[in-house]
Each structure stands twice: as C-alpha cells, then as structure tokens.
C-alpha cells in the first residue's frame, strides 16, 4: 500500500495534499443514545489478526511512517477525532460490523445490554464510536509552491 500511496503523487496538483484516515490504536466503544443520555454498553470485539485487536491499526501507523521516511512525503498536520456509526438495533449494527469491518462484531453481552436499553427507551439508537487518526501530507517539491 505504501507503493500505491506513492503512485498518487503524480496525480496531485502542485499545491495538492494527501489525507490518510485510519483507526487509532484503541477499541471502538458501543453506546446507546437515548433522548437524555449516552450509555456505554461495551466495546467492539475485533479478532482481525494474531497480534491482537489493534494490531492492524499499528500496521497503518507504520505504513505512514515508512512513506514519510523513505518516500519523501512531508507530515503537514495530524489530529485525532471520533467517527460514529449509528443504527436503530444492536443486531443491525452487529451485522454491519461483521460485513464491513474485518473480523469485528458485538459480543452477546454487549448486544444484550444494548437491546435492554433500546426496549426501555423507545427511539434510542446504538452508536459505535471509534477514535480515528487523520494525517495530512504533502510532497517536498510542492512545499515550495
């Protein structure tokens, strides 16, 4: 992917930039949001690799560091923010995670707590909230324009 990242350099205008977004090295939280409060009911279970649930996030960090160190990208700005995915039912969110995230799911206990709160609070929603790192980079030659 680092090679692919560098393919994009020629496509950028002289004052263009590249932004990478990938999850931080933390587990995503699962909340139930009622009209009056936000209640944490668990975290997303992620069995995506043998290095542990956040190993792939660390791999993304390393890929960016490699691009910066070896291929001449300049780190321009980096921030952490939260990104949320919202559903009406715990099973819907679980289904979404299993289809869209690699080896991620809601465990039975988290689904149970979420469903109990959803029954008690009509109109409440289930929210997955993940910390995401956003990195903006540019190339040296473009830095002088």
């Amino acid at each position, binding site marked *: 992917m680092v090679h*692919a990242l560098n393919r994009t350099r020629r496509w*950028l205008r002289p004052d263009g*930039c590249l932004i990478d977004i990938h999850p931080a090295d933390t587990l995503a939280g699962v909340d139930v949001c009622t009209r009056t409060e936000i209640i944490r009911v668990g975290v997303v279970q992620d069995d995506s690799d043998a290095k542990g649930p956040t190993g792939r996030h660390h791999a993304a960090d390393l890929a960016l560091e490699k691009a910066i160190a070896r291929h001449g990208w300049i780190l321009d700005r980096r921030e952490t923010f939260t990104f949320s995915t919202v559903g009406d039912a715990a099973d819907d969110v679980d289904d979404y995670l299993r289809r869209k995230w690699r080896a991620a799911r809601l465990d039975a206990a988290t689904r149970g707590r979420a469903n109990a709160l959803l029954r008690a609070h009509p109109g409440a929603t289930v929210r997955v909230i993940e910390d995401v790192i956003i990195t903006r980079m540019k190339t040296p030659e473009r830095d002088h324009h």
Partner: protein
Amino acid sequence: MLPGRAGLRVLEIGCGDGRLTRRYAHLADHVLAIDSSAADLEEFRASMPAAFVDRIELRASPIATLQMPDEDIDLVLMSWSL
C-alpha cells in the same frame, strides 16, 4: 483539514459504502471514489443522495491499476485503506 478552495477535485481510495464520502462531498466539485469491492460500490450507489449523483463518480478499481491524468486532483483521501 480539507483544502478550502473552489472547484475542489478529490480522489478517495477505499470509499466502501460511502460512509465518509457523504460527510464531505458537499465541499467538493468532483469526487472520484474508488474501491475494489463492487458490492460496496453498489450499496453506495443505491443509497447516494440525489444531490451528489452528479458530483460523486464511483469506480470499481484497485489503486494499483487506476489510471489518472497527471496533476488533476487537489486531494487524495485514503479512507481506512492503509
């Protein structure tokens, strides 16, 4: 973080079902959103707001084989794809 300029042209790599694209597309003049999963792109297309139909171009392609003109875009956005 996004460059604030008129006529913003974006290439988004790994757009999936568009969960990120929908949040910034109103700031861009044109978005080429690519993903290697045709199924995800079809889901994106089916749920795309009408206001974005002429603004977001979807293409099933891995980055490794994508062909683009030189110096054509203002922003490359890699979304959850590293």
